[in-house]
């Protein structure tokens, strides 16, 4: 015979297991439908300290679909590559602000920016940048043009730019803007001029 205390323990465990399975059955759909609280992946403050420098950020404006040159004073390191990275970070920080004129998805971060000789830049963004970006030809184009032009206008001798997502090539940003090829800086400059001219 099984001792009484074991019988009681077994009965309690049985009841608990059955109760839990019934509860799990009922909440299964509810759990699937409950939105998961987004992880707070807001970028940290720029790690660079020291003297600031005046740069020009090319900021997309959703209301009229233009790029606007906006002077900014940001800490800038001496290295060319680090400077390019800080420019990208400054622009993304501006877009993540609640009063941003061009909203991009929360959690967007610049993973790194590499300079590749001769005249190449690779901008590596995190997955949230593409996954949470709004879809549309113009809205995606504004982001791409703004990011590339901000870096290349403040960093001389850049001829071509590639945007990666999580270190990998992606077909498009959010269904429209092509990310599969290198951007020609001359063409982006021309586009930036068109976009700065207004509607």
């Amino acid at each position: 015979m099984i001792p009484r205390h074991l019988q009681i323990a077994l009965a309690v465990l049985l009841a608990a297991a059955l109760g839990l399975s019934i509860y799990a059955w009922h909440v299964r759909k509810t759990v699937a439908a409950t939105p998961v609280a987004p992880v707070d992946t807001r970028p940290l403050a720029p790690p660079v300290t020291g003297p600031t420098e005046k740069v020009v950020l090319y900021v997309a404006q959703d209301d009229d679909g233009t790029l606007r040159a906006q002077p900014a004073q940001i800490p800038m390191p001496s290295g060319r590559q680090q400077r390019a990275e800080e420019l990208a970070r400054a622009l993304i920080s501006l877009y993540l602000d609640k009063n941003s004129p061009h909203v991009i998805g929360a959690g967007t971060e610049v993973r790194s920016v590499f300079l590749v000789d001769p005249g190449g830049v690779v901008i590596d963004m995190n997955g949230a940048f593409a996954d949470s970006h709004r879809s549309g030809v113009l809205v995606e184009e504004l982001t791409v043009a703004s990011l590339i032009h901000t870096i290349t206008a403040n960093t001389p001798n850049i001829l071509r730019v590639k945007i990666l997502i999580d270190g990998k090539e992606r077909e498009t940003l959010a269904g429209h803007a092509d990310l599969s090829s290198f951007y020609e800086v001359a063409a982006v400059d021309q586009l930036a001029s068109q976009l700065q001219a207004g509607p």
Partner: protein
Amino acid sequence: MAAGTHRRDRGPGTNSSRSDWRYAGATCIALILASAILVSGAPAEKHLSVYSVAANYSVPIVQREGRDYVGLLEVLEPLGRVSGKTDGTRWRLRYNNVEANFTAGANRAQVMGRDADLGGKFVLENKRGLVPLGALNSLLPRILGGPVALHELSDRLFIGSVATHFTASLASDDPPRLVFHFSAPVNPSIANEPGALHMTFRREPLVGPASPTLTFGSKAMPSASYSESNGSAVVTVKTSVPVMASFSNDGRSITVAATPAPQTGAAPTPAPPSTQTAAQNAPAANAAPANVPPAAVPHYFAVVDASHGGDDHGESLSSTLLEKDVTLALARSLRQELQSRGISTVVLRDSDANLPLDQRAIFANADHAAIYIALHAASSGHGVRVFTAMLPFGSDDHGPFRSWTTAQHDWLSPSQSTANAVAGELQKRQLPVKNVAAPLRPLNNITGPAIAVEVAPQGADANQVMAPDYQQLVTSAVATAIASLRDQLAGAQPQP
């Protein structure tokens, strides 16, 4: 008893007690595992697809006592005035002027005073009356006063004479074409996989032919089969070559045609074939011909591309509005506007089908269309944007052959002229316009004049992009501009 035996065999005290705990522990783990399997293996929610003259819709199927049940109110609500009243275990249903009485747990019901067999117990839950799925066959004809056909195994219910029939015939062209004719317009989802093309009809009351398998005696497309499951009908075409489906006759015909095999050398583009779907040419080793032979006559003057489609929804403009649906409506409207101006036009994606970007460019290039127009829609901003290609860095040109990624290079000038004309015509209609280059595929792969048009609402309401009058305002402007450039576009030459 097993535990007792253990105690006797293993001797006193501690060992037997440990064995009992192990036994209890193992039982609990087994129970928890069984529960986990039970929960994870729960079947997906089933739906009954209902087709009627009034509406096509679906209602959830629930499981009671191991059988499929549906709520009578849910089935009848889209068809007319319906109400249910609970009185203890009794439930009274009223549909228009018909009254039916049900009793919880009873196998029979009364419809207009006459007995009806439910084939199972009636279930009353939260004032909702649930009947076995099979009972609809006997109940609905009495309640609705008309014929009803229930396909119980595939969860499809046909109310009245709503069925869509189809026939299939093989046209022995080269390449062969399999043409499906439907008795009503259809808009299936089309999926291509090696060896088969599947057309899934979820919204259409499609019914199968007398024999579920049709054979054609073609090596490229030997057979097609019809099947039903989970509220859908599926037509599967067996293929031994890559195929592509195209729509015509206002959605009443679907043509499945073999696509020509990709060329492996830098050969010139062949003259355009005489059929729409055969007019394709794969990118040859990632290169496209730089020059179109001057003698080539366009089969279609304009190729209108409804961007996105199938699994690619594009932007979700609102909770109910997808970009792929807006672009299709815009494309059809533009085709009508162009054709009314005497311009032969083909819509590349005339259904909700997946169509890769390369295929879109291949079609336009092989057709030697005088103008390629890609259509997009957006909720952000306002007005209309007209785009030309922004070419990527570098090219891999070899002699007379252009790199696939910069194939548009020699055609940028006529493309920009067209974009300017379209923007001008839109401005004349007081529409806000932006005219810029864009890194937008497949514009850069087109060997001919090519533009893209993105339509956004004029105000804050994204649904305006689906409004027929707004769409016509935009498409008539585009068509007028194209018509004004007809001679220039017809004689456009590449400009290296």
